[in-house]
């Protein structure tokens, strides 16, 4: 539960940020020195001043933001879609055309950000004006909305009609060019704030998020600050730390299919699932890249099913396989079902920790005492310290030796380096895409096969 105070008028914060940024672009475009060159545009027989062509807009954006034509068209398109620039030729179509079509900057009076919330009264006056000016000029959906408004704000209808007549009379006294401009401006404004049915709603902003001016901030941040200041015990220069990112990316670059491609081919591009088959969880011979990855970090080795299998074989030779078995059993407690925690802890104690246990693990006495105490009241994290100890033991001792061992080296030399699939002679022939068994199905199958296997 929150003590919330909604922002004024309920404006979404993200909308305001976008509008402010767009307005900056618009202002830059109208800068007398660096802005766009505007000229008079001829619209049928009238000459409209201060207009520009679609192409001009795109060129200016390309130059000033250092982007290509596609992106410039995309960005310019948004300026039109949000009503900051409106078209003179087809006022109902808020789209940026990269040609000689004339456009103009919207007057700040009609900016979506300045006139919020939209008033029903204004919309009624706008529709009334259209109706009076030319019978039948209203579109179907506008007619419907007009009658709905008529019912809703009937008590002010006289005012609406009077205002509409007044505005029409005033506009008749203006020059034709100004009249056309004002009509286009208004039309664009209403297209955005009252879009026709089926048209994309530019102001659709998703779920409302309450403003962040809550009074919830009392004690939590204070605690957080204290915690944070305690963790700054670094004396390492930032340079050293950031070199780690460079190193990591370089190490994994060859393994990144989006950057370097993958062998034999990326299944999504070639429709060939060979890559996945070759890299399945357990295969007779793994690929070279996969075996190389085991040497990147201990975690890489352990998180790969085959890697774990190989490592287990190595540990068995060294008579220290109980370490890995212990670690795996602890993982099962940490991530397993709550109801099974107690029995699993007992199993571990029996097999690994009890004096004289069959697979006794070598933990230092302090950790052992603490763990044994904890076992009396077993919970999910009771084995954490012991597990950590064994993990680091394996990481510092067995893991480096494994990487130097014959077992690993022979696996590396046996490993496959798949051939890159040659581009087929008929590049447009689409291969058949086969489905694979879903993991849920596979789990079902193994469950049903279980008792049968035992009967063999």
């Amino acid at each position, binding site marked *: 539960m*929150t003590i919330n105070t909604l922002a004024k008028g309920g404006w979404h914060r*993200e909308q305001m*940020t*976008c509008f402010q*940024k767009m307005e900056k672009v618009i202002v830059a475009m109208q800068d007398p020195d660096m802005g766009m060159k505007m000229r008079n545009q001829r619209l049928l027989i009238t000459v409209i001043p201060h207009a520009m062509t679609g192409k001009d807009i795109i060129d200016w954006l390309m130059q000033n*933001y250092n982007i290509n034509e*596609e992106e410039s068209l995309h*960005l310019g398109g948004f300026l039109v879609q949000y009503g900051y620039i409106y078209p003179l030729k087809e006022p109902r179509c808020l789209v940026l055309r990269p040609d000689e079509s004339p456009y103009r900057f919207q007057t700040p009076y009609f900016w979506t950000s300045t006139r919020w919330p939209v008033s029903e009264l204004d919309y009624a006056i706008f529709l009334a004006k259209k109706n009076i000016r030319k019978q039948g000029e209203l579109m179907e959906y506008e007619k419907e909305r007009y009658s709905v408004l008529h019912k809703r704000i009937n008590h002010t209808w006289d005012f609406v009609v009077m205002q509409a007549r007044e505005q029409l009379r005033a506009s008749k006294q203006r020059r034709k060019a100004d009249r056309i401009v004002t009509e286009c401006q208004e039309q664009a404004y209403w297209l955005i704030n009252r879009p026709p049915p089926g048209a994309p709603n530019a102001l659709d902003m998703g*779920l409302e*998020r*309450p403003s*962040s001016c*809550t009074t919830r*901030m009392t004690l939590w*941040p204070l605690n*957080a*600050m204290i*915690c944070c*200041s305690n*963790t*700054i015990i*670094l004396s390492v220069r*930032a*340079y050293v*730390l*950031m070199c*780690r*990112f460079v190193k*990591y*990316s370089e*190490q*994994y670059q060859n*393994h*990144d*299919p*989006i*950057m370097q491609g*993958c062998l034999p081919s*990326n299944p999504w*591009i070639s429709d060939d*699932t060979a890559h*996945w088959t070759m*890299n399945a969880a357990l295969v007779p011979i793994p690929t070279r890249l996969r075996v190389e990855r085991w040497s990147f970090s*201990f975690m890489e080795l352990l998180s790969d099913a085959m890697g774990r299998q190989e490592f287990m074989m190595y540990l068995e030779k060294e008579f220290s396989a109980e370490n890995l078995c212990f670690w795996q059993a602890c993982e099962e407690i940490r*991530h*397993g*079902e*709550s*109801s099974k925690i107690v029995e699993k802890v007992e199993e571990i104690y029996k097999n690994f920790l009890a004096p004289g246990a069959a697979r006794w693990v070598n933990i230092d006495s302090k950790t052992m005492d603490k763990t044994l105490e904890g076992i009396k009241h077993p919970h*999910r*994290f009771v084995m954490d310290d012991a597990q*950590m100890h064994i993990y680091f033991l394996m990481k510092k001792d067995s893991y480096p030796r494994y990487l130097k061992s014959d077992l690993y080296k022979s696996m590396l030399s046996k490993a496959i380096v798949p051939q890159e699939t040659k581009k087929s002679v008929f590049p447009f022939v689409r291969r058949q*895409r086969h*489905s*694979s068994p*879903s*993991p*849920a199905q*596979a*789990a079902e199958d193994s469950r049903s096969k279980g008792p049968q296997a035992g009967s063999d």
Partner: protein
Amino acid sequence: MCDQTFMAATFGPCESCGKPSPLMNIYIKNEAINYCSFCVELMACQGLQSGESVASLKRECESLKKKLEEERGKLNDVELHQVADKIEVLGALAIKTRRVLKGHGNKVLCMDWCKDKRRLVSSSQDGKVIVWDGFTLSKENGISVPCTWVMACAYAPTGCAVACGGLDNKCSKAVAMHTNYVSGCTFTNSDNQILTSSGDGSCALWDVESGQLLQSFHGHTADVLSLDLAPSETGNTFVSGGCDKKANVWDMRSGQNIQSFESHVSDINCVKYYPSGDAFASASDDATCRFYDLRADREVAVYQKDSVIFGASTVDFSLSGRLLFAGYNDYTINVWDVLKGTRSSILFGHENRVSRVRVSPDGTALCSASWDHTLRIWA
């Protein structure tokens, strides 16, 4: 002030107001009480000592913040892109749409990959959750959830289940119960636990089997919009980002807030860890994405461009961490070079906002979900 030790809480009627909600066990003078978070705040305000007020605590908070920034500043030597000057520039990437998944009847809000690298689950505004085989474009399963705006969905590690949550404040068969919408959910390393983030400002860890609340995480002062689990050896932390412009790192066992980063100027929509677990990226409504180094405890890179005006709603790293894919509200996906800080390329194709991007588990493809009712797979 009371002694605040947040241990595993339960769900039930609050001892103060009586309403059922996630409870916090706190100790006052060695006595355990179970209050809901609202009552705890009220009590905390009442428990101010003489001379203190909410304003004075706020001031103390601000001065600690300043001290923190000073300390961080002393360790600032150089920016990430300067370190990366020596490495070569990325070549042009030929990423194209390879699949378009059509089938949702409304905005697609979230998606997640299955560990088998080809299946994915997606959820949409109309309450439908669909499981797809992305490779063959077939829909394998469809579930109707009795709520709209299903904002979060996640695939279980074994591939045998999916979780989803949204405006009905619940996650999946009422495993998780929040007092406001569920904005994000993810399974921890197994099918048995779910981590959720919510509009009520908290994150919570739940046991799937019993529906019990294992741990709750309080510290955000506004809606939490996103969370991500750390891919670390010890696997005990996660990061969350919210409308209070903060990204917080939490310890899952103790519920404590370990680190906090506040450098965005607007809501943080999405957070994602760097593959090594030493850093994370965030996407925000201020149209920037930022990169934070956990060990240096600060922001080390900002990804922004003048021509990028609209907010970023989602981010994900490529497998090597060299590329950052960010989906924006202007219907595009920008691909950033993480190390150099420049934009590598821009992907057009969607016809409405991009709500989620996720790289597949083996890094072969990128999937994007959008408000234009479709999902696209890029490679």
